[in-house]
């Protein structure tokens, strides 16, 4: 059903596109872009990458680093009517779950305001507007190449298929520097969200999940009645899937003062039934509160911070085939992630960004009382926009973490420091290069 939904969404998007293309007489209403990111990555980690079913947090580890095509992105935004636009973002990936697939496909309806209230209705498959890093079309970040732990997870496991309504207005009088935006969404799908976060832990990278992706995870242990691990089975997660046919929801509000301060507070609940199972996926009842802050500082400095805290309830001991083992029990894991990023833009084309991440996940309900992930990360990146077509940069990333189950599940060390250095060259071509 989940797959069916995602396919329906993709099909609807493609039909929309075809219709839009036929209806266009003015080509300037269509925006089409292609971007190729080529990276040279040198990684240092005791583990293989999670993208290869390893225990590592990095997208690239020593087993698969070197010259990589980190993203081959195609984006389209077309105006179907004065107030209606369609957006489709697709990419090619050669790791984790390979091939060409769609990350976002949605339509926006923005009626002409008749008062101070500007409204928008978005429907399709899209990101909630939580990330303050991933501000560019294609959910790309202008700051670092690897997203923060919080936004990496949003990019991996949070992708509603549904409808979002939002309202924007200046407070007090037309043109007031105080602006308010409220948004609310009801959606299907996204029921397994939380699975990857528990089984692998937090991560920092730029691989966004596509609608039909089946992401690898560390293998699921098989325990005997004494609690000893007697084997493993491979497991994958399809974060977009629908397992219980019940809608989820998110809502939030954002206040900004001119182009100086922005504060967003939001709540997300996928409202999945943790006992629901469909298409090989269990529901994980995941909810979180999100706070985002962005501040312009003197001297072309900018500050971005996000804080996310939530819980996921799931059935420990649930079988891969949808059956419950005799010792299956509902457990609850609390998770939190936060980061602080400082960025400076020099001469409009050179950007230096420094970010500190901290993250945690621990058992709050049920046994064993494990801290499945705890750690922090530093990221330093320099990026240079050479022209409308060419850009490049370098990034250093260091993640230090402790994962208590690693010893118990995999007889592997709990503590790890993983680092990577990445050199990137990007080529972009399109009808409206930025």
């Amino acid at each position: 059903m989940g797959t069916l939904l995602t396919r329906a969404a993709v099909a609807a998007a493609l039909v929309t596109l075809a219709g839009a293309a036929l209806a266009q007489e003015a080509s300037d209403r269509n925006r089409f872009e292609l971007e190729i990111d080529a990276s040279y990555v040198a990684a240092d980690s005791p583990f293989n990458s999670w993208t290869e079913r390893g225990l590592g947090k990095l997208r690239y580890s020593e087993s698969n680093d070197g010259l990589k095509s980190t993203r081959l992105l195609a984006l389209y935004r077309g105006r179907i009517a004065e107030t209606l636009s369609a957006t489709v973002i697709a990419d090619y990936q050669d790791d984790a779950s390979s091939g060409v697939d769609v990350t976002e496909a949605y339509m926006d309806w923005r009626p002409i305001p008749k008062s101070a209230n500007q409204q928008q209705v978005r429907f399709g498959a899209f990101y909630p507007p939580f990330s303050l890093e991933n501000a560019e079309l294609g959910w790309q970040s202008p700051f670092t190449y690897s997203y923060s732990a919080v936004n990496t997870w949003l990019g991996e496991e949070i992708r509603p298929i549904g409808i979002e309504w939002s309202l924007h207005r200046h407070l007090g009088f037309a043109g007031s520097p105080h602006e308010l935006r409220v948004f609310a969404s009801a959606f299907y799908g996204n029921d397994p969200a939380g699975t990857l976060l528990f089984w692998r832990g937090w991560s920092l990278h730029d691989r966004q999940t596509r609608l039909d992706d089946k992401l690898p995870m560390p293998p699921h242990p098989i325990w005997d009645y004494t609690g000893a691990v007697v084997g493993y089975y491979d497991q994958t997660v399809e974060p977009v899937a629908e397992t219980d046919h019940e809608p989820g929801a998110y809502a939030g509000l954002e206040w900004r003062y001119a182009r100086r301060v922005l504060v967003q507070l939001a709540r997300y609940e996928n409202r999945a039934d943790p006992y629901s199972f469909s298409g090989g996926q269990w529901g994980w009842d995941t909810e979180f509160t999100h706070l985002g802050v962005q501040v312009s500082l003197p001297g072309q400095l900018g500050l971005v911070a996000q804080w996310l805290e939530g819980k996921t309830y799931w059935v420990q001991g649930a079988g891969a085939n949808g059956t419950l083992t005799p010792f299956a029990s509902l457990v609850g894991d609390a998770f939190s992630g936060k980061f602080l990023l400082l960025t400076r833009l020099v001469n409009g084309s050179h950007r230096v960004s420094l970010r500190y991440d901290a993250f945690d996940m621990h058992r709050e309900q049920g046994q064993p009382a494990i801290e499945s992930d705890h750690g922090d990360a530093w990221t330093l990146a320099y990026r240079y926009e050479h022209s409308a077509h060419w850009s490049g940069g370098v990034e250093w990333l260091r993640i230090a973490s402790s994962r208590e189950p690693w010893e118990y599940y995999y007889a592997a060390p709990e503590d790890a420091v993983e680092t990577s250095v990445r050199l990137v060259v990007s080529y972009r071509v399109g009808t409206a290069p930025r």
Partner: protein
Amino acid sequence: MAPAELRSSKSRSAVSILALLIGAPAAAGVLRVNVVDEHGQPIEHVAVYAVPSKPVAVAAGAANASMDQAHSAFVPHVLIVQTGTSVLFPNNDVVSHHVYSFSDAKTFELGLYKGNAHPPVLFDRPGLVVLGCNIHDGMLGYILVVDTPHFAETDAQGALSLAGLHADAYQVHVWTPRLRPNDMPAVKEIVIAADGAQSLTFKLEGKLLPDRDRDLRTSSTLPWERY
């Protein structure tokens, strides 16, 4: 009409054109205005206009103006025009804009376009027209429609002068987007004699709001408009 013929009005006084067209009267007064904040510091880009007691019709040569769009901003940020002026809205960006206003002084909408796709819009009622773009929430511009040809914006020294004023009684108004509507200074009344010169100082009380026009040029470090 060619863009070169369009009056940008921001820096230029309509009065000189008017004077040329009708033949400068032998005797004309001057009004010099200074605008300062509550600490006495000069304030730039404040609109000042002097409304005569005897109405002056818009001169044919001054009846056109232009509000451009560049880098997803309205240029100028504030355009002052005399009632009866037609304004063109050329979009010089690579992206399309969808300009609209729901202000009482003028409600209009220019459907998605680039370049000079739409005919000029006639502003035939005095008042403040707040402009927006339905594609880009951050775009905000103002057209101040006034019942006089005598208007200008303060320079970096917070000063301006309105020349070519006929002998008459005038109401002098001040407007800036950097003050809340209720904080705008009270109108001052003056009488200009033939060949007379007058000076006025307006002190802006109340907290000055951020200079959005300047913010636009300096706040590029962070993305304020998410896709």
